[in-house]
């Protein structure tokens, strides 16, 4: 399934040049919202109910010991409610806290909620899940417990996606990296804006590990060209490309999460991808246009 409602222009959003003043005035940016507001915006009005809210003070038990400021929700919002009347849980990562990194508590909130949603489905309650992914991946101050939690998030997505669609939304501006990019790759459907980036390794990590010639973490056009929302949509690695507009995002997510399951999850498409990759000679570097061409050419029979 591939949908793009009013594809955004390819220029940087700061320009926003081609849009009329009226449409700008009537839009509400999702990128500018925090995790809790994003979750509320996706759920039907009045249906939002937060689980383990900040007043419960479920903070990271590991950050304080390292002199790092904690947050009362550990940067993850678990919200139950309905989307177009259907039962749903929205798991929203706050990119503004520790880069949206996954620690023990935040990771357990996401994994645990997905596990309960799968249990609901086994009992006949069709609870859907939406993941709002603004995350650099594992929180390095909780390294192995972050990694373990992410493995459990993967397990729970694969379990749940057998029953109902699991939809990932990368709105921006942190993007989705590390082990959580693998979680994104496990979702039934992915929705992105032009502000989104999706990749395994964050630019600074690649530059550190492989050198600036391999990856220049300060070259924004290069990075957006390879890993930005528009490119990921053009190469089929995400399913929907939307404007940074709350109502458009909400409608797109609702249609996907309440719609049919994909014929087969993208993560099962090993035959497709291995056959495409067989046509690429890695002794030659590949650019954004090259990837579009490689992944869009018809299957060799």
């Amino acid at each position, binding site marked *: 399934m591939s949908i793009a409602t009013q594809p955004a222009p390819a220029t940087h959003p700061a320009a926003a040049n081609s849009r009329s003043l009226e449409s700008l005035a009537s839009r509400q940016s999702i990128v500018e919202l925090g995790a809790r507001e994003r979750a509320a915006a996706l759920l039907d009005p009045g249906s939002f109910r937060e*689980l383990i809210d900040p007043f419960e003070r479920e903070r990271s038990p590991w950050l304080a010991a390292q002199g790092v400021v904690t947050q009362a929700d550990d940067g993850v919002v678990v919200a139950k409610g309905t989307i177009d009347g259907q039962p749903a849980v929205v798991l929203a990562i706050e990119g503004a806290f520790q880069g949206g990194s996954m620690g023990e508590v935040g990771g357990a*909130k996401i994994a645990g909620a997905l596990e309960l949603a799968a249990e609901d489905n086994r009992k006949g309650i069709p609870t859907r899940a939406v993941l709002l992914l603004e995350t650099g991946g594992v929180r390095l101050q909780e390294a*192995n417990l972050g990694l373990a939690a992410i493995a*459990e998030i993967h397990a729970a997505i694969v379990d749940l996606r057998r029953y109902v669609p699991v939809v990932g939304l990368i709105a921006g501006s942190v993007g989705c990296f590390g082990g959580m990019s693998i979680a994104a790759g496990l979702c039934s459907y992915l929705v992105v804006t032009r502000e989104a980036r999706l990749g*395994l390794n964050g630019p600074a990590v690649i530059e550190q590990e492989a050198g600036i010639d391999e990856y220049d973490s300060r070259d924004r056009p290069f990075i957006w060209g390879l890993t930005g929302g528009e490119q990921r949509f053009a190469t089929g690695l995400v399913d929907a490309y939307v404007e940074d507009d709350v109502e458009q995002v909400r409608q797109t997510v609702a249609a996907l999460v309440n719609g049919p399951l994909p014929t087969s999850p993208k993560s*099962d498409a090993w035959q497709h991808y*291995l056959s495409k990759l067989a046509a690429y000679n890695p002794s030659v570097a590949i650019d954004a246009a*090259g990837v579009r061409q490689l992944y869009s050419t018809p299957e060799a029979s």
Partner: protein
Amino acid sequence: MSATPISHDRSPGAAQEPASSRGAIWFDALTGNATPAQGYPTTLLVADAPFAGSEARFISVVPDANHAYPRVRKGETGVIEGWAIAQAVHEVIAADQGKTPRPIIAIVDVASQAYGRREEALGLHQSLAGAAGAYAEARLAGHPVIALLVGKAMSGAFLAHGYQANRLIALDDVGVQVHAMGKSAAARITMRSVEDLERLAATVPPMAYDISAYATLGLLWRLVEVSNAQQPGTADLAQVDTVLRDALADIQADPTRGLASRLGAENRQASARVRAKLRAQW
């Protein structure tokens, strides 16, 4: 035309025989030197070999100094490896439909995911999701999945190859390490010095790199002592085989197919408490 070599030439004259990695050594030892199956990249050893009175599929990622992808020459897990692992697992799921699902044993010695421009451009995250998803689906389909950590189990590579197993087993050896990121990169990202990082790792168990600290997190099912993790002798092999069989029996006796058995440790109390609260408030 395939740009990636897909045949295994492991004869003595083969060009650039990979320096015997732990992944290759333990694969050979546990499969009785089985010839790896055809149709996989040089970096992925796959074989169905006798195990516990029946057969298991063994899967191991190994280095190839001549790998066509420059950033995948030291045993990293790249786009080809992720999708090829998915292939090796999905083939077994398909073949065993309607039969007893055979065990899958992931031999884990993975330096890291590939850090490269080509890999990001081609969607390395999706390839590793292919691998992780395949193991998770195999587990849900009733295949007992066991991961045996014999070397490094790093970050995205471990998430793709091993972390979805029903049971995790590690050799008790200094060369066996689990972590989210190499020390120098982790220091840069957290704006600390490598020395600070090492000092913190000594007191904060999840930050440590060594397997004994990892064992306190409750994620491992067993830690196995061997006399030589690099060149296992007959006794080492027998010891590991016994633990693998015990793990198989433990999985078969467990009616659940999830990862809940990892939640019991003192050092993971918050993971269990958060789940209990969610359930109460659900």
